[in-house]
């Protein structure tokens, strides 16, 4: 407690009494306070705090997460588009209508775009097949196969193991090495406007 009532010695008490007389006489409010103290009331800072205990029932509703669809990071997608535009002018190609050009022209451009795209893919990803067996060969699939890695098609029934023809070996990324960016701001700018001065 910060404040304390300390006893006053006789001399200051003797002279103080005169002051108190006039103060008591002059203020009704003060007189009322003095008589309250005289009756044994304690000042607020002298009183012991009382602890009030009360039980409150809290009902918290825990939401059981319903499976929500996750959104993949857009930055990565923007970065890949940037790379494809930079190396292969991919966006230029897709944004332009090719209806007016003959196959030879489109073919010549496709060669360039192919070279650029494959450079991007090979440089930043290591891609491997999921199933190493040759295409159209007979393969066995265990009963507890991973549905992400293998897609059974055709007459799928029973509990397996399954046997079938490998139609497509699948692709998987085994290593990703995308360029590091110093800031993810403005990744939506796939290519800046070029102005020659």
């Amino acid at each position, binding site marked *: 407690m910060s404040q304390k009532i300390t006893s006053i010695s006789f001399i200051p008490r003797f002279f103080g009494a005169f002051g108190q007389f006039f103060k008591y006489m002059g203020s009704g409010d003060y007189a009322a306070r003095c008589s309250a103290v005289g009756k044994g009331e304690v000042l607020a800072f002298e009183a012991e705090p009382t602890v009030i205990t009360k039980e409150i029932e809290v009902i918290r509703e825990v939401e059981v997460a319903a499976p929500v669809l996750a959104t993949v990071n857009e930055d990565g997608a923007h*970065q890949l588009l*940037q790379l494809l535009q*930079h190396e292969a*002018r991919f966006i*230029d*190609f897709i*944004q*332009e209508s*090719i209806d007016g*050009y003959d196959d030879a*022209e489109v073919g*010549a*451009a496709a*060669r*360039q*775009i192919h*070279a650029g795209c494959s450079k991007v893919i090979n*440089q*930043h990803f290591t891609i491997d097949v999921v199933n190493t067996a040759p295409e159209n060969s007979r393969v066995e699939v265990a009963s507890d196969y991973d549905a992400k890695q293998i897609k059974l098609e055709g007459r799928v029934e029973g509990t397996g193991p399954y046997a079938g023809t490998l139609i497509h070996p699948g692709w998987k990324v085994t290593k990703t*090495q995308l*360029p*590091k*960016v*110093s*800031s993810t*701001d403005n990744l939506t700018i796939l290519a*800046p406007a*070029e102005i020659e001065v």
Partner: protein
Amino acid sequence: MSDYFIGIDLGTTHSAVFYSESKQENATPEIKQLSIPQFTAAGQITEQPLLPSFVYFPHATEFLESDLQLPWGRANSIVGQLARELGAKSSGRLVQSAKSWLCHSRVGADEAILPVDALEEVSKVSPAQITETLLSHLVHAWTLAFPNAPIAEQDVVITVPASFDPAARAITEQAAERVGLRARLIEEPLAAFYAWLADQETWGDALHVDEHILVVDVGGGTTDLSLIQAVEQDGTLGLERVAVGRHILLGGDNMDMTLTYHLAGQLAQSGTTLEPWQISGLTQACREAKERLLSNADLSDVSVVVPSRGRSLFNNSIKTTLTQNDVQQLLLQGFFPEVTFGEQAHKAPRSGISTINLDYESDPAITRHISEFLAQHNAKPTKILLNGGVFNASLIRSTIETRLRAMLEGVELTMLAPSHLDHAVAKGATYYALVQAEGGVKVKSGLAANYYIGVASPMPAIPGMAPPVDAVCVAPFGLDEGSEEQMLPNEFSLVVGESVTFRFFQSQGNQVDSVGKVISSFALGQLIELNPISIQLDAGHYQEGEMVRVYLTARVTELGLLLLQAHDTKSDLNWTIEFQVREA
């Protein structure tokens, strides 16, 4: 003891770093390549195996502050892939081929001259500074990958062209020192040879005493030739590098340019004039077309397209075709024509005044340069080792083989299987660092020429004639690094405390002169004069301008630098004259 052996290939167009761990259990050390983070677009950093040796000085507003952050801090200039791309689009801000400037005969390496076409607001830098910038980028890349193995504590070897003169070596060495490297230098063709050695289990079986091995290293911008001889050393087979070629500014880039100008000429005839940016696009397209044509002889032609810079890939794009016939005619005939032994490279008549730039070779025939080199050293090699990306094309490989066989008639020629055409130099440098530390077969190299110092001989005054200068051999051909000091038999007078000029000469052939041999002033024409150096030697207790009696010693330091020392005959004073200050 260092943890790693590091080989740095500081190339004219690309740099690469290879390394191997020093403490290895198995006998064949594994040599790995360091990926080098570099800008590939504004604010995008990609790790790539090669660092293009290009430096670009961007305009103040060209990049946001956040786009210039490298993993090790802010970049003041852009180094690598992005620099090359930007330089193709904007002029006056790009420095390339800085390495070739280091041994320019008329421009000092410390002279701020690059970029040659600099814009007014771009402050020019010296070739030495560019070398330092490139090295510093590589050092940062190392530190990032191996924070616990400071590069200063590792065994580092940097490759330099065999044709680098002592001054160019000293500058490379000093640039390395400034970025905290204590590096040895090794000649590139020799490094390629070490890479071959590293692959051999018993190299002794492949070589015989007294046979010569020719190393042909065709880089992007330079061709470097070296001759290695197998010799008998105390009953076992040893190796000695006996000759190196001069600095030939001719390489793979010339081949791409040849095709570009050929197509540009064709287009001009049909009325299409190309703009500068289209030329660089065309060069790129030609390089790809060339690679396809050379790797597949059945292909009769390949279309070359230079797309417009606008968004349309079809409108305004320039299309032409490069035929198999063109490529074979232009490249194989142009660069690898049939030659006879001893044929000299052609010297084109030069125009009286030209801009200060690199002294590009006027004769593109690599085979002719080889024949000139071999004839000069009168050697008929029996083994050939090729190096450089140019030889990835089997057609070029087989052509040079055919030409060399025809030229060296009657010699049974074997083509050695190169370790790796693109990476052999850095790999060899790493292997060399390993051999230095742990032992193994070494190729004795040492100085590639005799070096002479100019000494004024006394003469009574004759009006209009300067006192003649004789050349005294101070360091003979083949003087090995770290070898004993060579002392000149005579004493000389040395001027101290006053600025004086020293003249240096280098011999052309590989005839070994003895130390102290005097080439009289009348025969100086047979020597190549190097850049003179102008220095003031500390006078010590002597009067300024006093002549002091000294004896001279020369040695090649551990790091492969030629060091000349003058010792006072009467006191302990020493003066060192280094090949470091160069004046244009």
